[in-house]
């Protein structure tokens, strides 16, 4: 833990430094336009003149405007501290029930994520059991499962929403189904591998006990598959979150992290977009960490770590 702390901190600081450096040329034109409007002398004068100039050259010619690039209201690239302040204001300083609270929107997305993850994991395990025990399913289901993942989720998400809406299903479930669509696949692949992981000797051994196939499943195959299941769950939960956010985009949803991203881009609220993005990243990291913890505890207790 202590050994990994230093490199992690160094990388984080490096990223923030690169971010700050990038803010200046990204926002310089906007900052110069504002400065000119408030009566300052800008070289060259006139937004039209500056449009095709290199951003770095403009920074060099107008160093007085550098400070302003960090505090624009609608910057092309918001500075890290602007995003941090927005994150703070939209979480700690807002009531959770407020429409402007990122926690409120995060919960909307999280609930769809968790429901979708549960459906996807359940479906994935069932399909994997079917594939392992039935040759017909092995031949027929796997190609479709793979094909399902080659369709861009952005293309199929609106169709799922529209079709379900036309039969009266709205709200949480359509988003959860898109989540499940993305998360069942890693679970199928991992569980098929895991359920097939017992070696010949172990299977022969059960045969000598004259064990039936359900005993073989519960006593050998399922416990053997646990390391594979957890690896899949980590991928699955992250995919679920992506699915839930994507599910919020095409419908013009008003709630959820996806809705924050969408409305931010409608109104040029880049700070809002970035804070929603960081919020989503934080949520994904937390979910993966929780599964990682469950994995460590479970496998340790099973003597498999």
């Amino acid at each position, binding site marked *: 833990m202590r050994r990994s702390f230093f490199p992690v901190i160094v990388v984080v600081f490096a990223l923030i430094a690169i971010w700050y450096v990038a803010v200046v040329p990204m926002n310089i034109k906007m900052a110069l336009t504002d400065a000119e409007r408030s009566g300052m002398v800008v070289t060259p004068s006139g937004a039209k003149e500056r449009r095709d100039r290199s951003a770095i050259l403009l920074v060099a010619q107008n160093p007085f405007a550098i400070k302003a690039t960090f505090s624009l209201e609608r910057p092309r690239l918001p500075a890290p501290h602007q995003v941090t302040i927005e994150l703070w204001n939209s979480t700690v300083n807002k009531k959770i029930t407020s429409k402007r609270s990122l926690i409120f929107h995060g919960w909307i997305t999280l609930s769809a994520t968790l429901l979708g993850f549960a459906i996807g994991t359940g479906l994935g395990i069932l399909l994997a059991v079917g594939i392992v025990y039935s040759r017909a399913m092995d031949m027929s289901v796997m190609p479709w499962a793979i094909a399902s993942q080659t369709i861009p989720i952005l293309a199929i998400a609106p169709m799922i929403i529209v079709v379900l809406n036309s039969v009266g299903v709205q709200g949480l479930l359509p988003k959860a189904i898109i989540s499940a669509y993305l998360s069942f696949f890693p679970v199928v692949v991992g569980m098929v591998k895991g359920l097939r992981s017992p070696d010949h*000797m*172990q299977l022969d051994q*059960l*045969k*000598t*006990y004259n064990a039936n196939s359900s*005993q073989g499943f519960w*006593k*050998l195959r399922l416990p053997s598959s646990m390391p594979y299941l957890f690896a899949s769950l980590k991928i699955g939960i992250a995919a679920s979150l992506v699915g839930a956010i994507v599910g919020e985009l095409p419908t013009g949803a008003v709630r959820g992290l996806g809705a924050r991203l969408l409305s931010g881009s409608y109104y040029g609220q880049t700070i809002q977009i970035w804070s929603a993005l960081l919020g989503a990243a934080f949520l994904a990291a937390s979910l993966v960490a929780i599964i990682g913890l469950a994995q460590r505890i479970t496998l340790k207790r099973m003597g*498999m770590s």
Partner: protein
Amino acid sequence: MTNNPVISARDLSLTFETNDGPVQALTNINLDISKGEFVSFIGPSGCGKTTFLRVMADLEQPTGGQITINDVSPADARKSRAYGYVFQAAGLYPWRTIGGNIRLPLEIMGYSKSDQAKRVQDVLKLVELSDFEKKFPWQLSGGMQQRASIARALAFDADILLMDEPFGALDEIVRDHLNEQLLDLWRRTNKTIGFVTHSIPEAVYLSTKIVVMSPRPGRISDIIESTLPDERPLEIRDSPEFIEIAQRVREGLRAGHGPE
């Protein structure tokens, strides 16, 4: 109980179909094993000794001849749980304790909870692992793990024990110790034991009957009835009688190998 042999093979043969053509793993095998015998199968790799053991256990199907276990087919014998099988590796489940691993076959066979607990205690005592019931496999040495796997094969009342190079992966000293224990266990339980090995001293030390096998095609080249007494301290391996039997086994192996 009749005096019929416990295991009886007549003109048994097994041919594997491989991509390189048929491989005769077993040909013309004739063998009777009586109740309470300790029979070793010895020979170089490819001689079919493990395959023969697996045929007895219904893990391989013969392609010719007959074989009976307790007067029935190997499949019926397996279904009536007539034998316990010990593999080369201990194969204990890491997520079960030693006690839990030994309980595995008992759970599968539907023994009652109280019966399971009693049997686990009994067989652990038999292999001298009584203090380790609650330990997990990784907490035990390789030799202890293999003893636990023998206990697992003994937990249900099969009177045949089939062992496929159970001590092959263990070092000499542990192996000697386990051989002594196995003999002791065999005398106390009066089980019929089929034991695959490629160690001549091990085969001679343990067996009442040594079956020498040779490869290409896999066949029996000699069957040696041991003249050693049932009571066998480790020192017996230096006796002239022991050396004489070992010599005969060695000759059998050499004859089977041909002029190479």
